[in-house]
């Protein structure tokens, strides 16, 4: 129930829409290309080891973290769903953040599922699936706000020194003045909004969703201000594997399974 107001308004931002449309277009091109080309190998055949090796970073809850039986988290569940959907055995490979792309490059893993944003700078070497989560910044308020342009005259809370702080200052140069209420953490910023000290808060989507889990009775409005799109990353020189991963993710998105997964963990 808490999601009703917040997520009804949480549409992707402009960049997010472009990525989603681009993903659909890419999938269509890949399908058409496949129709006129040599038969595509099966997914198992497209995997160098016959197993889907997923690189994860188990230091980043609730996406992935270590438990006594191994790993848990949103991305662990997602890895299982993707492997099951594509009919491949799954192997989770624990990595540190710094080693994710190197592991892909050295063929230690087939894909990365590790809160990895789509990064255009890497587009010459890697492919990204349709995104499964937007971790961008959200403008949150107790009244409907369409964008940062609606802020003048109000007070905005945010985490001091964070990306939200930088975006706040950027917008101050574009629109009429609004009040600033820097706080030590995203939760503290949301506290000021909930208790009426601020009229709006700018925090990342993960912090916002986790905060709302702890405040079930509170139903603010939210809109994305920036997009940070987490996707499954694969090597660009493995087009068949990338195609299957994109298909698998599209299927999970279409069937609402990703949405259910996000609601479970966030």
């Amino acid at each position, binding site marked *: 129930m808490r999601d009703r107001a917040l997520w009804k308004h949480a549409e992707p931002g402009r960049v997010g829409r472009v990525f989603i449309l681009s993903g659909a277009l890419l999938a269509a091109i890949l399908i058409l290309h496949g129709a006129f080309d040599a038969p595509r190998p099966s997914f198992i055949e497209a995997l160098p080891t016959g197993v889907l090796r997923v690189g994860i970073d188990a230091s980043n809850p609730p996406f992935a973290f270590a438990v006594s039986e191994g790993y848990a988290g949103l991305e662990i569940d997602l890895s299982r769903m993707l492997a099951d959907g594509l009919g491949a055995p799954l192997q989770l490979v624990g*990595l540190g953040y710094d*080693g994710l792309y190197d592991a892909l490059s050295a063929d230690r893993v087939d894909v990365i599922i590790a809160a990895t944003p789509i990064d255009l700078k890497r587009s010459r070497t890697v492919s990204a699936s349709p995104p499964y989560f937007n971790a961008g910044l959200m403008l949150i308020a107790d009244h409907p706000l369409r964008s940062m342009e609606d802020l003048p005259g109000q007070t905005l809370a945010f985490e001091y020194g964070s990306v939200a*702080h930088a975006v706040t200052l950027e917008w101050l140069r574009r629109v009429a003045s609004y009040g600033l209420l820097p706080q030590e953490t995203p939760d503290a910023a949301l506290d000021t909004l909930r208790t009426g000290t601020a009229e709006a808060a700018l925090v990342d989507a993960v912090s916002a969703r986790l905060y709302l889990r702890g405040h079930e009775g509170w139903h603010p409005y939210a809109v994305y201000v920036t997009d940070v799109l987490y996707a499954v990353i694969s090597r660009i020189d493995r087009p068949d594997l990338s195609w299957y991963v994109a298909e698998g993710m599209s299927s999970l998105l279409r069937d609402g399974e990703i949405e259910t997964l996000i609601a479970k963990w966030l």
Partner: protein
Amino acid sequence: MLLLLQGLVPAPPRAPLDVPQHVNTTRPKLCMHTRLIDEVEEWKIQRSLQLIREMGASTIVEFFPWAYIETSDNFYDWHNVDRIVRHAQNQGIQIIARMGLVPAWVRQRDTENVGLTTLNTLPRSAYTEFAEFVSAFAGRYQGVIDQIVIWNEPNLAFEWGFSEVSPAGYGDLLRAVYRSAHAANPDVEILAAGLAPTLEPEGSPHGLNDVSYLEALYDAGAGDFFDALAVHTYGFTIPAEAAPSPGVLNFRRAELLREVMVRNGDGDKPIYVTETGWNDHPRWIHAVTPAQRVAYTLDALRFTEKNWRWAERICLWVFRYPQPTLSYPDHFTFADTVFQLHPIYYEVQAYARSGIVEAR
């Protein structure tokens, strides 16, 4: 017409050199790790170094990738290094250089492993070429950059090109570099790489415990091929003054590395802590709160000043990234990509400049 149109294009932002500056600090060991080499716009290099000087750090550690400089065999493009050096000198800041990343022309020779290597894959057959690069660097920047760190965290598999980590192999790399670098610059100090703080046991595919690795490096006879040791020591979630222990990753783990040096007769060799710090991401499991980050960092600086006379520099990771990672590493920074300074910057600045009487 083309010339006319060219005339209409705005000039790129310029970064003219300032009046030569010096660092006003009461903490001469304070140092900052930077990531300047990937900056496109020169003014951002200048701005970063100005802010570091104003914070009171007199030294930076900067990465100078082999792959960026020797772009083809024996062709060196020093442009990016020169502009960092120019601005650092202008701000009165010293540089410790870290070397690494293998150029494409070396990697492409390994035709058997196409698609399986990384920028950290350095074949043994290329040690001599890497040594030649280090010598060229050492000679060119003699008197300007006299501390050179060879490689990064070779006790981690991914930093060793996903080969099995090898203290003996890394020792051979130091051996290949050492004499030629000294021949090119007699004043150079060759620093053995900072090792990643890790408890990985022998045989792990991910890496090897840093203390064990250093011990093995000495066992391999590499002690004669470095003049100083670079150390990476992070606090993770533990306060700065917590005592070290072999099974714990904390700030004072550096003391365990120092004990290995002493045991091997290297007690007189200096240590440069080239990476340290705490992270204040809201959810990363190795992070603390922003207030704890400030407190632990200042405690660490005070502690080292009092107790670590063997430490030449304490370099905090990291001043700023050219672009955000959009993940928890951003919470190690002192400034964001648009130069918004984080609270820890001001706190360290107050510490570094305490006791200074400002000129009016």
